[in-house]
């Protein structure tokens, strides 16, 4: 968003996992794993022209920091950087970039995997795809666990 050099955040400008990887990793980290999610030309049988990401920036940045803190804690990673795009993207553009460093490979792989999977279910970002035939639509997506109005959660039951 505002700080285009931040290691964790939402960006309106192009992002790359290589940039993130070069910004992380101390002398104790023997492994760096990167992941890029890119806009692909076919989705669910439709030819994608471009897409638009709309983000709830203030919350998305908090959620990203929370996900990174959880991954650091779970896998004892060295450092983790993650950026997600908002705005208009063309086919081939990077939508999400993640880099994780750790003393050994498994913690780095596990950290990257955790971050991308949590992004899929928790990050408040929405994608509208535009197709070659001129149509467009908001993609169906994930609903965060335990966040539905009308659904009793364990915490709500304890209050009752």
């Amino acid at each position: 968003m505002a700080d285009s050099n931040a290691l964790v955040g939402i960006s309106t400008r192009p992002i790359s996992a290589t940039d993130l990887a070069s910004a992380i990793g101390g002398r104790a980290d023997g492994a760096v794993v990167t992941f890029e999610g890119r806009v692909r030309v076919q989705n669910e049988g439709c030819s994608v022209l471009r897409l638009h990401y709309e983000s709830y920036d203030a919350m998305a940045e908090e959620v990203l920091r929370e996900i990174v803190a959880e991954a650091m804690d779970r896998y004892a990673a060295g450092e983790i950087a993650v950026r997600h795009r908002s705005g208009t993207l063309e086919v081939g553009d990077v939508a999400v970039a993640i880099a994780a460093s750790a003393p050994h490979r498994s913690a780095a792989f596990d950290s990257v995997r955790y971050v991308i999977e949590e992004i899929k279910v928790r990050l408040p970002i929405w994608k509208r795809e535009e197709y070659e035939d001129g149509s467009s639509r908001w993609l169906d997506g994930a609903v965060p666990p335990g966040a539905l109005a009308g659904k009793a959660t364990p915490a709500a039951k304890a209050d009752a």
Partner: protein
Amino acid sequence: MTLAGTRVRILLFGYYRELAGSSELQVELPAGSRVDDLVAVIRSDPPFAELPSRPAVAVNRRYAPGSQVLSSDDEVALIPPMSGG
């Protein structure tokens, strides 16, 4: 002691924003209202007839259960199914 109502600001995104034709709403509720009460009020407004009966809701940028009591000046967001990554 005055029993003032709760005035909340509601942010709308993606498909929900298009339903409303606006990215923000203000709703006045009786004091002590919960997230579920707010959702019921919003759904009674014709543009939101298509809103799921249990949309995900965030209060002050955290996902909130339907039982959470709202306070004036809370920043509430209706969260459509997400499609990041």
